[in-house]
């Protein structure tokens, strides 16, 4: 299968993702510039962390007007997996592909450390490698990771099992300890923690592999279904 990694001006985790997919997951992967307008030929799209457009105004607010975004919206609509990590999550909410928004951490400071997460939904395209209730460890590194949505939206998220990861010790003030959510269809995931930073034990954790591997397995299954 083939992953696309979108790169916006100011993205800074695109190469980390690239190496994670190429060296550890060992699948095809290509960087796709924000200037492009097509995502044909890709099976999954990853939106990396960083500070697109400096995160000026609001995180992700400016990036979502990039030429690639209409193609991303089309890709998401087609049901193929889209994973936005950190700034990628922020871009997805600003682009309206995920509900809610991410505001400043309650501490009003940037936080970088490894956090325990509970896998709340182990049936998603992104988490099928895990068991429900399993605790995994992933690094966070963000200033605006405090997930907010109104009560109604939260009820929907719960009812549709859209909350994939929750923090065990909420580090940033997110409602309902949310660390990662999908859209209603389940094929778009936004998460603040960085799985690509946790794919080698030498760097502290390899729990992130499960997320990428889940995508790979689900894409493979889809193909079997499609061709079978």
């Amino acid at each position, binding site marked *: 299968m083939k992953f696309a990694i979108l790169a916006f001006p100011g993205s800074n985790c695109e190469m980390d993702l690239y190496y994670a997919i190429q060296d550890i997951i060992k699948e095809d992967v290509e960087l796709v510039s924000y200037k492009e307008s097509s995502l044909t030929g890709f099976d999954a799209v990853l939106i990396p962390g960083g500070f697109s457009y400096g995160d000026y*105004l609001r995180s992700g*607010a400016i990036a979502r007007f990039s030429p690639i975004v209409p193609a991303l919206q089309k890709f998401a609509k087609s049901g193929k997996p889209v994973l936005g990590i950190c700034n990628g999550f922020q871009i997805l909410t600003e682009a309206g592909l995920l509900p809610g928004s991410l*505001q*400043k951490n*309650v501490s009003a400071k940037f936080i970088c450390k490894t956090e325990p997460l509970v896998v709340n939904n182990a049936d998603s395209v992104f988490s099928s490698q895990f068991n429900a209730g399993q605790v995994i460890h992933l690094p966070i590194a963000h200033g605006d990771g405090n997930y*907010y*949505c*109104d009560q109604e939206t939260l009820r929907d998220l719960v009812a549709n099992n859209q909350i994939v990861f929750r923090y065990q010790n909420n580090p940033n*003030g997110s409602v309902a300890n949310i660390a990662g959510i999908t859209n209603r269809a389940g094929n778009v995931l936004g998460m603040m923690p960085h799985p690509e930073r946790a794919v080698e034990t030498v760097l502290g954790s390899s729990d992130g592999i499960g997320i990428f591997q889940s995508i790979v397995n689900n894409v493979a299954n889809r193909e079997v279904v499609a061709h079978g």
Partner: protein
Amino acid sequence: MTLVKVYVTYKRSILNPEAQAVHSALTRLGYNDINDVKLGKYFELTVADGKSKADLDQEINEICDKLLANYNMENYHYEIAETEAAQ
């Protein structure tokens, strides 16, 4: 030139950590009569002349909806000053 002043503020239900930080700093500094602090953004847009009022209103609303404010969390309002105001 027309000067448009846009105010973007958080919705009432949103706890804004930065405003809270300012509020508690003020309290620590001894300003105990400050009961509440809200913090928002203040834009001054200088717009070329030549648009009707209705067109300008439409443009500003569009700009706010699309970019300047996030409708999940923020409200906005604006004022149009006839001439370019001095700073």
